[in-house]
C-alpha cells in the first residue's frame, strides 16, 4: 500500500507562496486559515532557507492520539483526516501537534472557535466523494481523481513533492546525490 507523504526540498523552495494560494484557492479555505504555509529562517542573511509546511500526515500522529472524540483518523494510505461532523473544536490536537498544522476558524468574540481544519492531502473527507458537502467542508478530493495535491502540483520550482513516500524519498535522495551536497529535508528523517 502506498504511503502518502509530503517532502519540501529546502534547496529549491524560494518562498513564492504558490503552494499556499494553490491550496486556499483550490479548496476554498477561508482567509485566516492556513492549511499550508511557508516559513523562512535567517531571512536576509546567508543561509536563508524557506520551507513549505502543512500537516505531515505522521505515522504516529499525536493529533489522533489526543483527540477526545476520535474525530481524527488515518486512512490506509497514511492520510490523516478529520471528521468535521464529530470534531468539537477543543484544540487539543493543536496543542499536541509539533507542526502547528491544525487550524481553527477564530473570530474576535470570546475566542470563538469552530471545528478543526487542516491539510487533507487534497483527499476530501469522510463525506461522500465529490459531493457538495465534501467540497464545502473539506475541499477537493483530488486523490480520488488520481491527481497530485494542488500545492505540490503547482510548486513553481518543484521543491514540494507529494505522493508515495518511497517514491518521494527516492526522488529526493537522487536529487541530493546529483547535487553532491548534503542537503537535508527538514522533518523527513524524523517525522515519519
Amino acid at each position, binding site marked *: 500500500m502506498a504511503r502518502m507523504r509530503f517532502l519540501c526540498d529546502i534547496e529549491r523552495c524560494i518562498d513564492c507562496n*504558490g503552494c499556499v494560494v494553490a491550496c486556499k484557492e483550490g479548496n476554498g479555505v477561508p482567509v485566516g486559515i492556513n492549511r499550508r504555509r511557508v516559513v523562512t529562517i535567517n531571512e536576509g542573511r546567508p543561509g536563508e532557507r524557506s520551507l513549505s509546511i502543512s500537516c505531515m500526515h505522521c505515522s504516529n500522529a499525536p493529533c489522533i492520539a489526543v483527540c477526545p472524540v476520535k474525530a481524527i483518523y488515518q486512512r490506509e494510505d497514511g492520510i490523516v483526516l478529520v471528521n468535521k461532523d464529530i470534531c468539537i473544536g477543543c484544540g487539543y490536537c493543536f496543542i499536541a501537534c509539533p507542526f502547528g498544522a491544525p487550524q481553527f476558524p477564530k473570530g474576535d468574540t470570546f475566542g470563538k472557535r469552530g471545528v478543526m481544519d487542516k491539510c487533507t492531502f487534497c483527499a476530501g473527507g469522510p463525506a461522500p466523494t465529490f459531493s457538495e458537502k465534501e467540497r464545502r467542508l473539506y475541499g477537493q478530493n483530488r486523490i480520488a481523481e488520481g491527481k497530485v495535491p494542488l500545492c505540490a*502540483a503547482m510548486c513553481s520550482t518543484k521543491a514540494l513533492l507529494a505522493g508515495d513516500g518511497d517514491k518521494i524519498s527516492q*526522488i529526493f535522495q537522487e536529487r541530493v546525490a546529483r547535487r553532491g551536497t548534503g542537503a537535508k529535508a527538514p522533518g523527513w528523517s524524523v517525522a515519519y
Partner: protein
Amino acid sequence: MAFKRAVNEKRSKAKVTRKFTLNPKVARRSFLKIAAASAAFAGLSLGPKVVRRLEADEKKAPYPGSKIVRTVCTHCAVGCGIKAEVQNGVWVRQEVASDHPVSRGGHCCKGAGAIDMVTSEKRLKSPMKRVNGKWQKISWGEALDEVCKRLLEIREKHGPDAVHWNGSAKVSNEMAYLQRKLAAFWGTNNIDHQARI
C-alpha cells in the same frame, strides 16, 4: 466509503525504506524522469491501487460535463500555462497544466490564484463616472458616448496631441496592436505603456 478508517492505529506499521542511490547512472535517469513532468510524477507516486480502488465510486468526476480550457497566466512574462476547468460557462476550478513545456504546472502565488481575476468581488461591476465627488453608475452607452464626445471635443479644440494614451502590457498582442493603431488613427504619437517603466 472508499477508504477504511484506521482510527485505532495509534502505532502505525508504515515504514520508510530508505534507498540511497549514489550510482550516478541510476540517479541521473530517475532525476530526469521526475524533472520531466509532474504529470508522470502524479501517476508514479499515487500508485495504481489508490486510483483503481476509488474509481469504484458512484460519481467519477467532481464536475461532471466540465471541459478544460487552456490559457496563459496573466501575471508575468514567463507565460505559465493554466488549465481552466469550466462547467456550464462557469470557471469552477484551476487545474494543473503539468504538461506545459515552460512552467510544467508550476505557479507562484499569483498564478495559483489566477481564478480570482474572474471571481474577485472587487472587480468593477459597471461603468462609472464621478459626479460631485460621488461615483455614479452609468450605462455603457452613456459612458462611451460621453467619453468619446469629450475626447473629440478636446481633439477639436487643442489638437490630437492633447490626448495621451497609456496602453498596456497586460492585453493580448492583438489588443496592443489596436491600441497603437488607434493612436495613429487618432493622430498622435502620445502613446506609451509599461515597457518604458
